[in-house]
């Protein structure tokens, strides 16, 4: 059971295709693990055990019949509970949508099912994806599995996705990322996940927080699995007006392990400077490891990043308020106050603020493009701190104290604002045993290089292979 629980998606797909393990065995063992562990972890909102077992038996029959199999045939999948699933409630982590049952799957859910994946259920999240801590007043706060003695934040908003993958309940989960909601839980839970370029993966059928800042992507235990899942998810979709027509490369084939001559720009000002000493040391060590592997590392700065908080606030607050306006008129009391008050505050952001935010966004995008004209990727911490306690309100950063929300989102949000692809990957642990995440940022639509760097790093380190001790 333990081996199956932490087997990679690629390994499971290979074992299943080779008839060495049955999808029924895999799904049953994962469901048993969910039953055993998730009462305290609180990573799932809805477990679709019966449907999963039915799908597993069908998957097994396909293998035995020698039918063509998808690249992820029989591999379990968890979905953040904002992906529409036909016939299965999709709550957005809210009370308002507690009984909402979509008629159709989100595009990416359909694509992953077509690739052979079997969904085990819907994962906990911050209400309507509006917050990075991972708290949820309606369905319980997901628990970071890396500290058995203290309830620590999983990070959000894709908190259940982070916990479920880290705890070995599923090998792959989908998250969404408006200011860091894939990369933050990956950083705090020791995972690898990628926020693709805006437009690379369809958002159709995914509950929005901020249409122009939302990205969807996979969360996994290594870069190779992210590559596998992203390939199956990505590509043009007529149902998403911002979907790109660019062809999707074979991300797995791009994982050469070779970073010789690759130019890496290490982001020190604002990024490394704001990190705790343990996070800073780990990311600097990762830069040296890449250098040792043949990459060329130098330092680079993004001076305009200081205006991202204001610009992103103007954009996200306005777009989120627009989506929620009808409910805020009639059901404001049904929101968790921590989320509702922030949504309501969006009513006081003006149209001029919104346009200023979008202008600032153009400047930031240009600045990141210029940095990436001289470098193949940028390297930074994913979060400046490791997992705070669930009730912590303030954390100490390398350059002063900060409220937890601002701290967690500080280093990831710039690349939602600019739209560039960015992944988080583990690069160390603190003395207290908490994971540290680094962020790799690439050129638009060059997820292949981002994943190649993460994978190359994982070939010479073992941070991604460590597992939490679970009761």
């Amino acid at each position, binding site marked *: 059971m333990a081996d199956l629980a932490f087997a990679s998606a690629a390994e499971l797909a290979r074992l299943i295709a080779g008839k060495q393990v049955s999808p029924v065995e895999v799904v049953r063992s994962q469901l048993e693990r969910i039953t055993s562990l998730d009462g305290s972890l609180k990573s799932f909102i809805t477990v679709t055990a019966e449907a999963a077992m039915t799908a597993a038996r069908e998957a097994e029959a396909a293998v035995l019949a020698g039918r063509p199999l998808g690249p992820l045939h029989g591999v379990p999948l968890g979905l953040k509970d904002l992906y529409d699933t036909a016939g299965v409630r999709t709550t957005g982590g809210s009370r308002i949508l507690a009984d909402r049952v979509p008629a159709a799957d989100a595009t990416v859910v359909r694509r992953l099912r077509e690739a052979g994946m079997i969904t085990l259920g819907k994962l906990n999240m911050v209400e309507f994806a509006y917050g990075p801590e991972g708290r949820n007043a309606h369905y319980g706060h997901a628990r970071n599995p890396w500290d058995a003695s203290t309830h620590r934040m999983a990070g959000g908003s894709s908190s259940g996705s982070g916990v479920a993958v880290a705890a070995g309940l599923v090998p792959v989960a989908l998250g969404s990322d408006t200011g860091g909601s894939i990369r933050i839980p990956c950083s705090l839970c020791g995972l690898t996940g990628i926020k693709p370029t805006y437009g690379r993966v369809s958002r159709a059928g995914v509950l929005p927080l901020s249409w122009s800042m939302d990205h969807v992507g996979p969360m996994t235990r290594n870069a190779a699995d992210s590559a596998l899942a992203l390939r199956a998810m990505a590509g043009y979709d007529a149902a998403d007006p911002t979907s790109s027509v660019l062809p999707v490369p074979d991300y797995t084939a791009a994982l050469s392990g070779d970073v010789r001559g690759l130019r890496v720009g290490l982001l020190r000002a604002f990024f490394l400077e704001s990190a705790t000493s343990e996070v800073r040391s780990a990311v600097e060590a990762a830069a040296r490891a890449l250098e040792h592997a043949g990459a060329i590392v130098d330092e680079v700065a993004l001076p305009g990043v200081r205006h991202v908080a204001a610009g992103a606030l103007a954009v996200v607050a306005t777009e989120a308020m627009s989506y929620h306006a009808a409910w805020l008129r009639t059901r404001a009391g049904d929101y968790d106050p921590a989320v509702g008050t922030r949504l309501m505050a969006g009513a006081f952001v003006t149209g001029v603020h919104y346009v200023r935010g979008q*202008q600032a966004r153009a400047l930031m995008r240009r600045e990141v493009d210029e940095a990436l004209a001289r470098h193949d990727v940028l390297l930074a911490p994913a979060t400046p701190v490791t997992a705070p306690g669930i009730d912590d309100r303030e954390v100490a950063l390398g350059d002063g104290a900060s409220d937890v929300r601002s701290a967690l989102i500080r280093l990831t949000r710039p690349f939602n604002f600019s739209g560039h692809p960015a992944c988080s990957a583990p690069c160390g642990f603190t003395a207290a045993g908490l994971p540290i995440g680094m962020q790799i940022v690439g050129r638009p639509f060059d997820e292949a290089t981002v994943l190649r760097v993460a994978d190359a790093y994982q070939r010479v380190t073992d941070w991604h292979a460590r597992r939490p001790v679970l009761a």
Partner: protein
Amino acid sequence: MSEPLDLDALRAAARLAGFAWSDTQLEAIRPMVEASRRLLAGLEELPLADVEPTTQFRMF
């Protein structure tokens, strides 16, 4: 632009936007609205006069 907001001003602005929130609700969000306005004021410092906003995001 970033001076403190009193409840009357907040109530009027909310009504103008179509929200009939109670005074209790408005008091609860007032600190956040004031903090947001202070942050947003910083956008005026940017050289944005000749910058076209990103209304249609990067797509190929």
